[in-house]
């Protein structure tokens, strides 16, 4: 099963991509992008009232939700967000303590995973390289990010090797045509956010990269 674990819809202030257009795009590009589902990780927010089950049924694509928050070690994706987490942290605060986020999200039943670790300022690698203590309790990092620049994803492998983190992928799409270009292949079925949290802890997954075939298809068009 292949899921894109990092995507932004128009609910994020820097995206203009409607969720339903992502789903139409994935339906249309099925041969090129074999994506079974996406995880919406909107910036600095969590809306507990949203229910995408009708769209899931209509398009046959799994839609799960997380969040992307900002910390003193860079940006972190949260999976398995609960009301207790939103009471514990102000998701709009761009100065959250990464260690508190990782530890508390784990205690409250979720997974907090640093995203685009190779980016300057907002990626984990730079903070480790600056001598900050390694975060305790990280189970996985986004080893493959579709929005990263040349060299940024390549920096991540050293951190994975050094600390034994799980490695996953996500498109970080803010535009419709970028959804699913990087994703994660799971050995197990992921039907719910609880399944996803369990799977991320289980390490039976790997990043998958569709960028080259998308480029090739565009070139051929």
């Amino acid at each position, binding site marked *: 099963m292949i899921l894109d674990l990092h995507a932004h819809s128009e609910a994020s*202030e*820097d995206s203009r991509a409607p969720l339903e257009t992502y789903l139409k795009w994935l339906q249309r590009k099925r041969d090129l992008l074999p994506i079974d589902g996406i995880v919406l990780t909107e*910036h*600095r927010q969590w809306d507990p009232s949203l229910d995408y089950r009708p769209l899931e049924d209509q398009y046959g694509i799994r839609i799960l939700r997380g969040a992307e928050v*900002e910390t*003193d070690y860079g*940006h972190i994706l949260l999976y398995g967000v609960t009301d207790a987490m939103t009471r514990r942290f102000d998701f*709009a*605060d*761009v*100065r959250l303590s990464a260690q508190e986020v990782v530890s508390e999200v784990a205690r409250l039943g979720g997974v907090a995973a640093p995203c685009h670790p190779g*980016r*300057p*300022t*907002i990626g984990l690698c730079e903070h480790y390289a600056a001598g900050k203590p390694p975060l305790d309790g990280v189970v996985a990092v986004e080893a493959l990010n579709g929005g990263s620049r040349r060299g940024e994803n390549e920096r991540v492998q050293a951190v994975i090797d050094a600390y034994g983190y799980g490695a996953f992928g996500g498109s970080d799409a803010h535009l419709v045509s970028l959804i699913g270009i990087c994703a994660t292949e799971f050995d197990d079925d992921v039907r719910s956010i609880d399944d996803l949290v369990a799977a991320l802890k289980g390490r039976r997954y790997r990043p998958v990269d569709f960028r080259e075939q998308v480029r090739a298809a565009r070139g051929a068009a």
Partner: protein
Amino acid sequence: MSAIDRTIVGQEFDRTTFAPVTAEQIVAYAASYGDPDPRYAAPRADMIAPPTFALSLRGKHFMPRHMPLHLGRNSFDAGKDIEVGADVRPGDVLTAVSTVHDVYEKTGRSGSMTFIVFRTTVVNQSGATVATVDQKMMFRGEATDEHR
């Protein structure tokens, strides 16, 4: 850099009522960006203005007189969204009311940024909204120790 000051959110900083819209204004606005639509090319009985006409209106103040000092002096236009409402016709008297709609922060490759969204609501003489314009400005404050 300390937490952002959101006390200015909701503050109204401009309210301007403009002279009645003229057909010549509409023609000039459409011509300014080369709109080839004949409906805007010359005055006519059923004339309406292009949907983005409200963007040509200039109030007395672009932003609040007293901005929070911590925002820094470096800023730039970070884009605008416009929601179009009732048609604008020659003779309409438009009033634009500008408020601070939102203040938020984000971090990116180059460090911390603060965004302020100025919302201008334009209504006609009947009170119908003809446009709601959200103008974003990005402010780059002083570098923090972390980002120096």
